[in-house]
């Protein structure tokens, strides 16, 4: 009899403890739920806004192209690596007719992207029809751990329509001397 009462008492205690625990859990849930919902709402709103800004960015890109870079006089210069381990690029400067038009310092991610076949648009601008000079100055670490600075020049004929010039960097063993090759995209 005593044992039964003890058991009942224990059950009662457990059930009270369980009720307390449940109440605490519910209270915690009540406290946490609005916070989580607010954060989720905020995240959803931010994502919605980011999507709208991205749409606007597309429109602005097209508008910028129309206003700033008429295709007939447009010149774009792109940079690629001819081979994955050719060079570890540090910086590049670009001059059109001796006027500096672009310079770039490379981050690790950008270097990695170039090594994986990424293409960088170095410059987009306008020049009149006729002959022009493009000069590139690069600093880089070569495969045999030398830090080098090299310059290369390229003369090109600006014809009607957009001109797209590719600047391709290469360096081969054993001397890993950087070579800068220019070609025009058809």
């Amino acid at each position, binding site marked *: 009899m005593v044992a039964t009462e003890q058991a009942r008492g224990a059950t009662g205690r457990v059930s009270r403890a369980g009720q307390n625990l449940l109440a605490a859990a519910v209270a915690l849930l009540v406290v946490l739920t609005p916070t989580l919902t607010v954060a989720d709402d905020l995240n959803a709103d931010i994502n919605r806004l980011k999507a709208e800004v*991205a749409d606007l*960015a597309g429109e602005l*890109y097209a508008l910028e192209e129309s206003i700033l870079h*008429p295709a007939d006089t447009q010149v774009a210069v792109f940079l690629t690596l001819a081979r994955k381990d050719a060079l570890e690029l540090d910086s590049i400067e670009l001059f059109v007719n001796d006027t500096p038009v672009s310079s770039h310092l490379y981050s690790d991610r950008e270097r990695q992207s170039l090594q994986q076949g990424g293409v960088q648009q170095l410059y987009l601008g306008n020049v009149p029809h006729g002959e022009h000079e493009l000069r590139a100055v690069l600093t880089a670490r070569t495969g045999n751990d030398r830090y080098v600075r090299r310059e290369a020049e390229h003369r090109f004929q600006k014809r009607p329509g957009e001109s797209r010039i590719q600047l391709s960097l290469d360096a081969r063993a054993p001397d890993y001397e950087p070579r800068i090759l220019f070609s025009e995209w058809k």
Partner: protein
Amino acid sequence: MNADVRMGRSAARHLRFALAAVGALTVCGQSVAFAGNATEHSRIAALAQFDLAAGQPRLALARTEGAQGAQSESVAWQRARALMETGQVARARDLLERQLQGQTHRGDAALVLGRIANTEGNTAGASRYFDTAARLGFGETRQQALYELAALKLEADDPDAAGQLLATMEPGYWAALGYMNLAGVYSTRDLNAARPLVALRVALAMSEQDAIGDRSASLRSQLLVRAGYLSYLQEDHEKAIGFFEQVPLDSYHTPRALYLHGLALAARDNHRAAMQSWHRARKYPLAYPGVEDAWLGMGRGYDLSGYLGQAGEAYLAANASYESERVTLKKLADRINDEGAWKALIVDARGDDAQWFLADSRTLTQPRMAYLLQFMEGTAAQEAVSRVSELVDLELYLAEKHQHLNVWKTSLRERLATAPGSAGTSRAGLADRAETLRAQIQTLAQRQGDRSVRDELSNTAETLSAVETALTSLERRLAKRDARLAALVRRADAALTNVQSLRSQVAKLQERAESSLDRVALAFVKDQDKRMAFALDKTEQQIAHLYEYLALETLERGGR
């Protein structure tokens, strides 16, 4: 002959300059579009890939806009990545699902889809995607997918299955991270530290194969501290000391390693060496875990070495240090309330404002940086900071575009206000000049010259015909000029309205995001203050014990 060549070159150069001047007057505008062939698609994909690496996902999106669809898998893949980075998960998901049917990015797409499903709480879906990524992916993609699968198994409380998955991984960062997590699960389940220690040793070996220096060094420090702590708990002090001594001094984990190193040395009754470690740990800001214990340890070390006077002084110094830190934390909380956590904790940590903590460098010893690093360890803090950071980035982007649009609009209006008449009247003059130049080219071409001169003349003639063609169509293009400019002004106006509306939305959301960050930061500061109060309590107890002991000693001595 030489003189002829020189003359020829000089004349050709003059012709080029003249043509350049004429050419500049006859430009016409057309929109740029990539031709729809395979080479162009691969170029777009390569350009977008670099844009993403350079942190310009919006540019990558704009580039891939016209080339979406099934034409190029690579373009669609880069577009999906850009969509993910600009928060457009739903749009990205469609493209990623299509990638699963393709050839080149199936593994990568499955990995991203798995992470999306995991974030949404769809564990079964995530597991399926990760499995696909592990099966179809290569290199880092496959390793990440296996790591994610192992993490899901650990979440499901199945460390054995996780271990089996980890065993199939290549040595490197992801395998090391996986084994570290496995060690964490084992250490909560097991009564002794044998299995976690083995897992940590494997993780250490795996991390050695990671080629990326920074993350590898950070992970290795963390693994060493964990392995050392487990060895200390196992009372294998020699091994623990060995692990701690490998932690580099410039690591985020160094203060904790120094404190535990002291603890292991003290356990071997080498109090002098222990105090040297704690003394070094005390040089770091109290924000780092282990530093407040190191202050306390100094007093304890003197106490155990029998220098009771110095022990008292050390406890009092610890006390003063904790009190001072509480003042600093109070100031920080006040600044968060006044200026917001974004400025007080994040922006100012990168600035040169050295007055707040009288800091003179941005190393680990700077308290502000220490609190920032400590704060950023929490998931809630990372999310809150990331939200504000994204909105600040959006505002900067929109402000820049707002300014550009205003400049373009003004310039276009000025061009609209300028009558094209002067250009029209000068057309006849330009045509005459072009005619004269053509005659000069023909005269020069009749002279004997070397190949380079002939090439130059040929180029010049080509440029001249381009200019003449442009001149011929000038009237027609001039007639359309005003309509085209007006259309551009209308587009700029519409874009400007759009930008203004988006900026006001950004401002509202930024306010909400910042107040959410403030709440998280204030809770963090409150926790830090509690930690200091607790440490203060401990030193006061130690001081009370010490004085009690000294009083009893004095009484005993008096009794004798």
